[in-house]
């Protein structure tokens, strides 16, 4: 029964996003903008899967996923910018020339090559996650402490990225790219291709996460969430497991970021400020933590609402989102995916009450 329903959901999802939406675009029913907007949401959903792994399953609230997301984006952005610079015959990206920098900083060099860029986009966040994780998990920082320290870390990184001396474009970030792998970014077919790639990566990521959570590894993660000490006494190296899942989550965020960049056309430190990092966690909370489908749907839905509300209710959309956050946390602690459960419970509780009073 359960499997059948899941399958139905998957089929619906695939039909809608892989067939209906592109078909709608190709027949002129939908604009290319709708396609790339959804493509961007998929990137968020990929990052949300990582958050669900680390928070929903392992119980570690990491607020630095936004930072990993940005690392991925920045890496690809550096590559695209260098390509454009080289193509236009210049030696330095525009913003560096304005900042009176004479030679390309050493850390920009590897980003000339696409292969290296992709590799570094994955390696750097993984290395960061590994080091941060090692330091934090070894000293058994967890729960609230973990959340606040990672948040502070993101804040510090945000401040560093805002600086112009770091040669990453400061507040303005990196923008104005024209092509990826030789294909023009402005062309609609490239946009559609990026959309489809994002969708494919999302599906693959979902599948991998599904396999992870249903393996014994996934059970150990949940065991860590439930009782970390018991896991230790059962001879599992908790730090290793936490580190592994932290790195995986960072990688997912980075992959999301990498796909996000060409579809948005800009990356700024604003993507990793306090607001952005809390919002990322919110997607998962609203969708339903500890539930991969919830993470995906939460990310898609919240961002969709954000887009819609800022156009339809420019003055009051913050109220709408704010109330949504509060009410979800208060009354639907299992998120959208647990909506049915929660309502059913409330109903049966009410029924029980009435039957008792009679």
């Amino acid at each position, binding site marked *: 029964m359960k499997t059948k329903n899941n399958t139905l959901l998957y089929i619906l999802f695939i039909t809608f996003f892989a067939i209906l939406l592109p078909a709608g675009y190709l027949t002129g029913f939908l604009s290319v903008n709708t396609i790339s907007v959804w493509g961007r949401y998929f990137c968020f959903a990929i990052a949300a899967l990582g958050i669900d792994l680390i928070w929903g399953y392992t119980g570690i*609230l990491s607020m630095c996923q936004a930072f990993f997301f940005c690392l991925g984006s920045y890496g690809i952005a550096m590559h695209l910018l260098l390509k454009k610079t080289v193509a236009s015959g210049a030696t330095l990206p525009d913003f560096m020339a304005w900042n009176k920098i004479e030679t390309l900083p050493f850390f920009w060099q590897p980003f000339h090559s696409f292969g290296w860029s992709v590799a570094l986009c994955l390696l750097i966040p993984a290395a960061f996650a590994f080091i941060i994780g090692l330091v934090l998990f070894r000293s058994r920082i967890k729960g609230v402490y973990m959340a606040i*320290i990672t948040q*502070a870390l993101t804040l510090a990184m945000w401040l560093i990225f805002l*600086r112009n001396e770091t040669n990453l474009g400061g507040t303005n970030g990196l923008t104005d790219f024209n092509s990826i792998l030789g294909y023009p970014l402005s062309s609609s077919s490239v946009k559609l291709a990026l959309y489809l790639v994002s969708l494919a990566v999302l599906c693959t990521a979902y599948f991998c996460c599904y396999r992870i959570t249903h393996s014994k590894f996934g059970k150990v993660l949940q065991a860590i969430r439930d009782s970390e000490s018991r896991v230790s006494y059962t001879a599992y190296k908790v730090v290793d497991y936490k580190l592994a899942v932290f790195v995986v989550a960072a990688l997912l965020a980075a992959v999301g970021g990498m796909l996000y960049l060409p579809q948005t056309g800009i990356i700024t430190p604003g993507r990793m400020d306090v607001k952005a990092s809390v919002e990322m*966690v919110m997607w998962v909370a609203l969708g339903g933590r500890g539930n991969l489908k919830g993470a995906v749907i939460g990310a898609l839905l919240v961002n969709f609402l954000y887009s819609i509300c800022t156009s339809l209710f420019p003055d009051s959309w913050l109220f709408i989102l704010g*109330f949504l956050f509060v009410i979800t*946390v208060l009354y639907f602690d299992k998120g959208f995916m647990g909506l049915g459960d929660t309502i059913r419970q409330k109903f049966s509780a009410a029924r029980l009450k009435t039957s008792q009073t009679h």
Partner: protein
Amino acid sequence: MNTSLLRMLMCCLLLLPLFSAGQDSASIYTAQLLQPTADSVRTQAIGRLAILRIPATFPLLMAINDKKLYLLDEKAVTIDSNPSSEGTYRLYSLYPNNTLLTNSSGQPLLLPLSALKTVDIPRADRLQLAGIAPLFNLFNSDPQKRSLAYSQLKHTSDSATLSILKAALAKESNADALRTGKDALYAIQLYKASTTVSAKANIDSIADNWSDNAPVLLRDYARSGFLNQETAQYAAAKAAGLEKRYDNLQRVQHFFSGLSLGSILVLIALGLAIVYGLAGIINMAHGEFMMIGAYTTYCTQIVFTKALGIPQTDLFFFFALPCSFLVAGALGWVLERLVIRHLYAKPLESLLATWGVSLILIQTARLLFGDLTAVKTPQLLAGGWQVSPHLTLPYNRLFIIALSMLVVLFTYLMLYRTRLGLQIRSVTQNRQMSACLGIETRRVASITFFIGSGLAGLAGCAITLIGNVVPDMGQTYIVDSFLVVVTGGVGKLAGTILSGLGIGFFTKISESFFQAVYGKVFILVFIMLFMQYKPKGLFPDKGRIAED
């Protein structure tokens, strides 16, 4: 007797012998100035007066320069620098006589600004007076203007100016201005000194006087090699000595800055720590309660000035302190009732829900108040305490330090000397057990939340002294204050205080080495390493209960 009047009279007397010609033309230009037929006529008139340097016109020119020129029945007058308690001013005539205006009964005439007609002289015209401003400003009633005048005169060497300078110095009452004045005098003398002994004596005087400018002055003298090698070296050595002393004072200044930042952090984090310790709630909206406190202060100011019509008093601020505590506290209490109550001991969920609350509060404030607003600093707290000429401790920061000490004291007394405090502490340690012992944990929680939010409101009120009031002001401090709570150890008063001050100090010290941003990163790395050593903060709970 009024000093400014005296000064002006002095000025006239002293300058009289120096410039005696052109009284007639002065009257013509003055009339042109006050009733110009065209803008260019006024400009020219002021220009002529500036060149003529007629002492009798100096009070008038000073009034122009200070933008305090008014007309009363078509006659040029100026006002006293400070208004009376009713907002009225004493008036002085300007030309040809400079006297205090009296009413028919011989009492000083007191009028509000609204009874006078302001004469607007464009800055371009005013700036024509730059050349002689130092001369008449030596007798200005504003000590800052006098200081400026002294320092502007230090490169003149004509004996006439020197004698005026000496005369002005003899009457100087303000310590700062006196120091700058002496500096100018010694500087002139130093460059006049022709013997090593007298030069050294002057160098000593300059060093002893130690104005802001002294090291530069001495270095310049040393570099010029004005007299001989010996005096040059002597001056350089003195300058180095002064700079060293100055650096030491700077260290004290950094220490003070650290203390001030630390006490702000303590003030904000205190409420957070109590609430977090008691209820296990991560209140992301804590910063917004601060914002509410700040807006309450702003509103109090508006009510006092607009509705009650009490201008120019500091009263509103001291009224705002309890108000902001109560308003923020009350809203906190409401929040506890509506939202927090359902989230006890679910710190991560509470983090998300209160984040939603903070979004709502920010947008509400934005819709209600709209823009950047700022609270007027009370007169009492403006300026600073001059510990030494080179060390000023601003009153507003001293006030915040004092306030946070008081708040810490009261919180301590409340927690450790009252029944409520005992209940709060017991609920903090063991909720269920406390409930079993008949403590109404919900009521205690409500009250604690009230106090915690109120403290945030108080912090917000204090912050208006140094910053502005914007809807998202809370976000600036929230992560920092959480860091304080976490570093201090959950629910520990001493830990919060120590870590707040510690982070404040470290931030300020690192800021003097790195730029502000890297200072922050440095602090964070430091905290992370510290947590390696003490994962539960400075004052963790010990024993078996603490585990799990």
